[in-house]
């Protein structure tokens, strides 16, 4: 029997290396090439069909029309009227344990369960992951000798354990002490899943809070709420006020496809309001957009109201009034300033930009909708009625950037410019 064992071990080792390298290196820049090459060299009949991740994605039906149902699929078969939730998932896992006392095929089952988790909506549930790990038989896969410890012991199982952890990582689930306990019981302290576990413990928290501008995990479905969230996200001033200028109204209740009245949500801070009030009416302001903003997997578009930077000769120098502070002098009568010795400012070339007066998100990106926004703004910014507004909108709206999302927004295709008089007329109408 010993030679059979030896062959099995060798096979397992080679396959295991591929898996381990894949698991350990996923995410590193070169990992996308390396695991494939390794697999091509070493792997025998692949245990799963995913190249990138250890977790097999659900197979796409058109590609493999004839596919035998995965083993244990029946455990997840939908009961009539049964709901897909945590309870039924847990029941399926428990059923596996009950019907299969010897836990035959538990690796396949775990892979299957990992794939099914999203359907059941438990992909972020730590207890479920621990439950899955609990399926592994305990103490069996722990290396007992030095040789076993040096080589990969029970590679397929270790790979499967890593796959569980990997899926946890992808969903941002932090393993806890129970996970650690299970892993030690199953694979021992010096195993690859344990290494993965330790790395997750170290890095997950750091990456979890690395974004200074966190976006909630579940985005609101309502476009108005989503617009509010997005506007708050890009507006640094916490005093800024959000105004809903127009609520969405649609023909039929179901569709937001073709609303007759798109939503318009705007944001403006008190400072922006003051800046707009002091804006020279001889200089036009521009409505520009749409610009894209990604909130998790959603892309929303916003428009800005801005003006050009004043040429240097027109800028007013802020003068300190003579009689300003009743209590202490605001400036000293000395003719020398700070010494270079105490000047910690870096020499930075700052690109100055023109002021932005307001931002909005609207359901439609056409000029009529945005004109309504400007009308709404005029109520709180009376000065805006005197300032010519020029619309500079990118021609195509809708699916503007979704296909080439990472590229810079296209230059405005057409500039819609209005005569000032025309616009004033329109504003008059709007106000009357």
């Amino acid at each position: 029997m010993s030679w059979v064992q030896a062959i099995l071990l060798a096979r397992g080792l080679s396959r295991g290396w591929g898996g381990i390298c894949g698991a350990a290196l996923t995410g590193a820049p070169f990992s996308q090439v390396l695991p494939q090459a390794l697999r091509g060299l070493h792997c025998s009949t692949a245990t799963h069909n995913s190249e990138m991740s250890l977790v097999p994605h659900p197979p796409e039906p058109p590609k493999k029309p004839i596919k035998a149902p995965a083993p244990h699929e029946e455990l997840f078969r939908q009961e009539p009227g049964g709901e897909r939730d945590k309870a039924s998932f847990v029941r399926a896992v428990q059923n596996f344990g009950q019907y299969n006392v010897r836990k035959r095929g538990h690796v396949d089952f775990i892979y299957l369960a990992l794939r099914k988790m999203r359907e059941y909506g438990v992909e972020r549930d730590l207890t479920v992951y621990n439950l899955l790990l609990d399926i592994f038989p305990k103490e069996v896969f722990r290396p007992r000798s030095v040789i076993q410890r040096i080589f990969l012991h029970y590679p397929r199982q270790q790979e499967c354990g890593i796959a569980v952890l990997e899926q946890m990582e992808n969903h941002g689930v932090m393993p806890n002490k129970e996970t650690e306990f299970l892993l030690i019981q199953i694979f021992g302290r010096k195993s690859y899943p344990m290494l993965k576990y330790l790395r997750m413990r170290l890095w997950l928290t750091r990456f979890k809070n690395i974004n200074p501008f966190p976006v909630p995990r579940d985005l609101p479905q309502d476009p108005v709420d989503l617009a509010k969230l997005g506007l708050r996200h890009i507006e640094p001033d916490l005093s800024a006020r959000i105004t809903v200028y127009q609520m969405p109204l649609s023909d039929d209740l179901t569709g937001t496809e073709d609303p007759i009245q798109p939503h318009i949500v705007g944001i403006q801070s008190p400072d922006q309001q003051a800046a707009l009030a002091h804006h020279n009416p001889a200089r036009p302001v521009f409505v520009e957009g749409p610009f894209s903003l990604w909130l998790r997997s959603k892309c929303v578009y916003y428009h800005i109201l801005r003006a050009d930077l004043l040429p240097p000769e027109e800028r007013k120098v802020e003068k300190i009034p003579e009689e300003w502070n009743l209590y202490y002098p605001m400036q000293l009568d000395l003719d020398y300033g700070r010494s270079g010795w105490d000047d910690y400012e870096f020499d930075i070339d700052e690109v100055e930009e023109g002021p932005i007066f307001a931002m909005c998100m609207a359901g439609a990106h056409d000029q009529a909708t945005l004109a309504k926004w400007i009308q709404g703004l005029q109520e709180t910014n009376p000065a805006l009625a005197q300032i010519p507004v020029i619309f500079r909108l990118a021609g195509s709206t809708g699916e503007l950037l979704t296909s080439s999302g990472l590229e810079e927004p296209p230059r405005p295709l057409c500039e819609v410019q209005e005569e000032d008089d025309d616009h004033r007329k329109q504003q008059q109408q709007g106000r009357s």
Partner: protein
Amino acid sequence: DSQKIDREGKIPDDILEKLKSLGLFGMQVPEEYGIILVGTEEQKAKYLPRLASGEHMAAFCLTEPASGSDAASIQTRATLSEDKKHYILNGSKVWITNGGLANIFTVFAKTEVVDSDGSVKDKMTAFIVERDFGGVTNGKPEDKLGIRGSNTCEVHFENTKVPVENVLGEVGGGFKVAMNILNSGRFSMGSAVAGMLKKLIELTADYACTRKQFNKRLSEFGLIQEKFALMAQKAYVMESMAYLTAGMLDQPELPDCSVEAAMVKVFSSESAWQCVSEALQILGGSGYMKDYPYERMLRDARILLIFEGTNEILRMFIALTGLQHAGRILTERIHELKRGNVTTIMETVGRRIRDSLGRTVDLGLTGNLGVVHPSLGESANKLEENVYYFGRTVENLLLRFGKTIVEEQLVLKRVANVLINLYGMVAVLSRASRSIRIGLRNHDHEILLANMFCTEAYVQNLFSLSQLDKDAPENLDEQIKKVSREILEQRTYICAHPLERTS
């Protein structure tokens, strides 16, 4: 009956009448409302007798909803009528003491003034407004934390006609009038607070000597004794400072003592708060009860740090006024240093080396011809040393920051603190020396207090001065600024809860 006044928020009329008959209204009133400072002879003749006799009360109307210490944002406006005989006054003032009782108001308003170059500017002007001029209304008295006996309310002026002769000072000169009035009103706080503290010491000492715990009187516990020493010391210092300032004010040719007055105000208000708080601590639970007067004193003392210019603003005033003076004297030297004049640089470096090797500073306070009594000699030496090194530090600061020091508020605060301590040391040394020489009763107690204060102040000053050095490890300003910036960006406390992640 202070308790009743506190409860009802009003001083009974009969008591006011008695105060009037005692002539107490004449004590400080005229100055506080500016008439004696800048009023014309006619104005003085018309209003002073009435005010001093208590026939009329006055109110000082400067603060507005949008304008605390910022004179530029005053909204109240006075426009000259067509016949040029009246000003029409419009606007609202808030937190006006005596606003509901006064018949005469000193009001500050913006007026249009034609400048020397012909341009029209808005400038502040002060007016004497009588309630009988019409259009003067006031809101209901504010419900306050402390000083509930004083009547504080809003005052509104609506098309009030003020005759031209009631302009206080010059037209457009209201800013200076307001500054003068504010500066002159402060020094009295020191003596008033000292009086309060003396009373407080009596009350709490009584309690500490009668209350027994563990078969010992409270007065036998060290931690209680410490509090009495503190109260006595603070009372002594602020009294000394107040009387030194008063003495200077009484000198001929009306010296400008606004900085000294501000120092007295800052020191006495902060000491008052600290002492009342400690007194409450001596009393334990009873101090917290409304049945005893201590909680009322605590509430009343809190306003001292806020009104007549908050202590923060006054510290800026103290430091900047001092630095302006120092800057004028040092300008020449600093220019030479900046130009790289070899002699000056060598001189400065040499002096620095001498200083760092340790030198005894002797400015002549002690010794055979010194003005300080030998029993206070050590304290006087400490003062001299502090003064000398403070001078060095100021020179350094001016060299480093120049006129941008106005922006360095944390630096200015330390400069002000050192200045206040130095002034306090001067005051106690001169008072204690005088007490010894003229043989006042218990002058050895005074020496104790003076030496105690001087030692404490000396150590505090050394610390402040070392913080003012460049790159001093004691100086946490950068960290302080960063912490507050991070908090203010989010407008919340940003640390995560300690139990946020438990595994």
